[in-house]
C-alpha cells in the first residue's frame, strides 16, 4: 500500500464561460521517502490537482469523480452529498493539513503572517502539535531553524517575515513543515522566485526531508534541471491529464510521449553548470532548439481526441477521433498516446515485429 494513492481524479470549475476541466482522470501514487516531480506548462492542472488533494478548492470547484487514499485512510473529496458528509470530510482534512501533509509554496508570504513574529508562527504549531510547553517549543524552533540553515536563529525569533530575504522565508516555511513531521510535503514551485545559488540550498533541504525523515515529497516545477537533480519519479501533465509517467531516467532517456520529447527538445540539454558533463558533452557544436509549435490549449474548448493534437508533429487521423489510452512500457513507465496505444492498428501489426523499439508490448520485461 502506497502512502498516497489517487485514482481517476477529475476536478472541474464552473465559470461563466462554461465548465473548465482542470484535472482529468488523473491516477498516481507516492511512496514514503520518494520525491515525485510534477511537470507541465502553466495551466496544465498541477496546482489544482494538489489543492484538490488538500481539500482547498475554491468554491466554484467540484470533484465529480476520483478516489484519494492517504496513509490507509479514504480522503476522497468526491461523492460528498449530505451536509454531514461534507462536515466530516472538512474535519478530517483539517487534522491532516499542516500536520500530516505539509505545504511549501512559491511565495512564502502566502503561508506566513506578516504581522506576527517568527517566534509566534514557529512555536504555535509545535505547541498544538506536541502539547509541550512554550519554552520547549521555542527550544525546538531554534534547533529547527539551525537545521534549515538560518544563522543565529535565537536572535531572529523576534523578527517579522518582512525582515527576511526570500530564501530565508522559504527556510522558515520548511522549518515549520519539519516541526510537524509530515508524511507528505507538497512543494508547489518552491524555488521559482529564488536565485540559483539559493535554490540549490533550498533543494538540498527538501532532499534532506525525503532522505532523512522518509517524507514523501510532491515537487511541482517547470524546471527540467530541478526535476533531473531531485526527482525519483516524474509525472508529465498536459491539459489536465498525465500524459507520461516514469522514473527520472525513463523520462529523460527514453521519453515516449511527443509532448515530453518536445519539452526536452525545447531546452539546452548541455549541462548549464560546472561538472565534467559540461566539458565532455558541452564543447562541441551548440545544440539547436526544436521548440513545440503553437501554444497550450484552452481548457474550455477542448475538442474530442488528444489535447496535444494541434501541436503534435506525429499526429495521426485517429488522434482527432478518440482520446488515446494508457500504454505501459515497464512497471513504472506509462504514457497516453495513440503512437503507443495497443488499439492502434499500426501497433497491432508491429506486435510481431521485433525491430520496432517503440512497441509497448516488447518494452515489457
Amino acid at each position: 500500500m502506497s502512502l498516497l494513492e489517487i485514482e481517476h481524479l477529475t476536478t472541474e470549475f464552473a465559470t461563466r464561460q462554461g465548465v473548465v476541466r482542470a484535472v482529468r482522470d488523473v491516477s498516481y501514487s507516492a511512496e514514503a521517502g520518494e520525491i515525485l516531480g510534477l511537470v507541465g506548462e502553466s495551466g496544465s492542472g498541477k496546482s489544482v490537482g494538489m489543492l484538490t488533494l488538500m481539500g482547498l478548492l475554491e468554491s466554484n470547484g467540484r470533484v465529480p469523480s476520483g478516489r484519494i487514499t492517504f496513509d490507509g485512510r479514504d480522503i476522497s473529496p468526491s461523492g460528498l452529498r449530505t451536509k454531514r458528509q461534507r462536515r466530516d470530510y472538512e474535519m478530517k482534512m483539517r487534522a491532516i493539513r499542516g500536520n500530516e501533509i505539509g505545504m511549501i509554496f512559491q511565495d512564502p508570504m502566502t503561508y506566513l503572517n506578516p504581522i506576527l513574529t517568527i517566534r509566534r508562527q514557529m512555536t504555535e504549531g509545535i505547541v498544538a502539535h506536541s502539547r509541550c510547553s512554550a519554552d520547549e517549543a521555542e527550544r525546538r524552533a531554534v534547533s529547527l531553524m539551525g537545521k534549515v540553515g538560518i544563522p543565529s536563529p535565537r536572535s531572529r525569533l523576534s523578527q517579522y517575515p518582512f525582515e527576511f530575504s526570500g530564501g530565508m522565508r522559504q527556510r522558515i516555511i520548511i522549518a515549520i513543515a519539519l516541526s510537524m513531521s509530515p508524511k507528505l510535503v507538497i512543494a508547489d514551485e518552491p524555488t521559482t522566485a529564488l536565485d540559483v545559488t539559493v535554490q540549490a540550498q533550498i533543494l538540498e533541504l527538501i532532499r534532506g526531508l525525503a532522505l532523512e525523515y522518509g517524507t514523501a515529497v510532491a515537487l511541482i516545477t517547470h524546471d527540467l534541471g530541478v526535476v533531473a537533480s531531485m526527482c525519483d519519479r516524474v509525472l508529465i501533465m498536459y491539459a489536465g491529464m498525465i500524459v507520461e509517467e516514469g522514473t527520472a531516467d525513463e523520462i529523460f532517456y527514453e521519453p515516449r510521449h511527443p509532448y515530453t520529447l518536445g519539452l526536452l527538445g525545447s531546452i539546452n540539454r548541455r549541462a548549464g553548470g560546472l561538472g565534467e558533463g559540461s566539458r565532455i558533452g558541452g564543447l562541441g557544436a551548440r545544440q539547436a532548439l526544436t521548440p513545440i509549435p503553437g501554444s497550450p490549449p484552452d481548457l474550455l474548448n477542448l475538442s474530442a481526441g488528444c489535447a496535444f493534437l494541434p501541436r503534435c508533429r506525429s499526429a495521426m487521423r485517429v488522434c482527432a477521433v478518440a482520446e488515446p489510452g494508457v500504454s505501459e512500457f515497464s512497471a513504472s513507465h506509462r504514457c497516453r498516446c495513440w503512437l503507443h496505444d495497443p488499439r492502434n492498428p499500426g501497433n497491432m501489426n508491429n506486435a510481431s515485429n521485433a525491430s520496432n523499439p517503440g512497441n509497448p508490448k516488447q518494452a515489457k520485461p
Partner: protein
Amino acid sequence: MAEPLFRAEGLSKYFEMQKGSFARKKYLKAVDGVSLEIDRGETLGIVGESGCGKTTLGRTILQIYRPTAGKVFFGNMELEGLSERQMLPFRRKMQMIFQDPYASLNPRFTIGDIVEEPMAIHGMYTPARRRERTQELLSLVGLKPDHIRRYPHEFSGGQRQRVGIARTLATEPDFIVCDEPISALDVSIQAQIVNLLENIQAETGVAYLFIAHDLSMVRHISHRIGVMYLGSLVEYGGVEQIYGDPLHPYTRLLLSSEPVPDPRLARAHRAPPPEGEPPSPIDAPPGCPFCSRCAFVLPECAADRPKAYAQPDGRKVRCFQYSARRRQQRRAFGVRDIADAPAQRPHAQHPHVQHPSAQNSPVPCPPAQRPPWSPAGGGRA
C-alpha cells in the same frame, strides 16, 4: 581593429537612498564601473542573481537612466551630454525588449497600432508604407498579418512577446537590450522565442545584450558573457571560456548551482550546496564584494576592491587571485595556472568574433572542481 558597435567604459549608476534628513546620504551602487563592448551581429549575455543590477545596466546603456559615471559610445559617438533631441536618432537604433509581455503592451491599442507607433514617433516612412511594414514585421515574428486589428488580451504570453519583438524591430535597431525576454514564458514557448531572436539576428545583423537568469539559455544564445555580482562584471569573456572553464570564484559558484537537466550527470556531480546569500548593495563595505561568500579569500580581499585583471586568454576577471602579482607568484612556485595555457584556447585572440558553433576541436579541460591555482599535472589525490 574595427570600432565595436557599442562600448561602455567604467559605467556606473548609483541610486541615492533617502534615510531621513539628518542621516548621512547612502548610495546603492546598482551598477559600478562596468566596461563592455558589443560588435555588430553579436550577443552579449549578462547573468547574475536578482538585484545585482542587470536591468539597471541595460537601462543605463540605453540612456534611460543617466549614468552616474562612465562613458558610453555608440559607434564612435559619445552619448554623454547629448540633449534629448540629439539622442533621438540613437534611440531609434537602440531598443529594449521587456520581461513582462503582459505589462509592456498598451491594452487599448490594437496590435497594428502597437507595432506601428515607434515608426510614427521617429517619422519613418509614409503612413501607407508603415502599415505595409507592420504586416511584414508581424509575419517576421510568426504572427498572421490579419492579427493587426486584434488587441493584446486576445493573445497568449508567447504571442505577446512576439508582438513586443515586432515593435522593437520596427525602427530597424542595430542593438537591442533583451531584459529577461523569456523568463515569464513556458519552457516550450521559451525555445520558440530564442529561435526567433536568433533568426532575426542572422537576417538583420542586430546585436543583443541578452539578460537572463537561465544559464543554459544564455549559453545557447550568447557569444560573449558578462557575469555580474553586486553591480560589477566579475568575469567577462567568450561563452565557452566562461562556461567551459570559469575562473572567478563567483562564476564557479553560480555555474555549479544551476541544476543540470540530465539525471545521471546530476547524480554524479551532487555537491554540497553553496553557503550564504548576496549582501545588501546599500553602503557595501570596501574590499571585494564577494568576500563574505568566497572560499578562496586572500589577505588583500577585505581591504581593496579588485580590478578587472586581463588574462592571457583575453577575458577579464575581477578577483585578486588573477592579479598579475598573484599569477606571477603561482608561476614562481610552479603552480599551474589555467589562464596561462593559450594553446588550449584556439580562439584566444578574438574570443568574441568566434561563434561557439565554430568550435569543433575537443578541448581537453581539467576537472572543474580543482581550483585553477592547484599544482600542475593534477598532482593531488
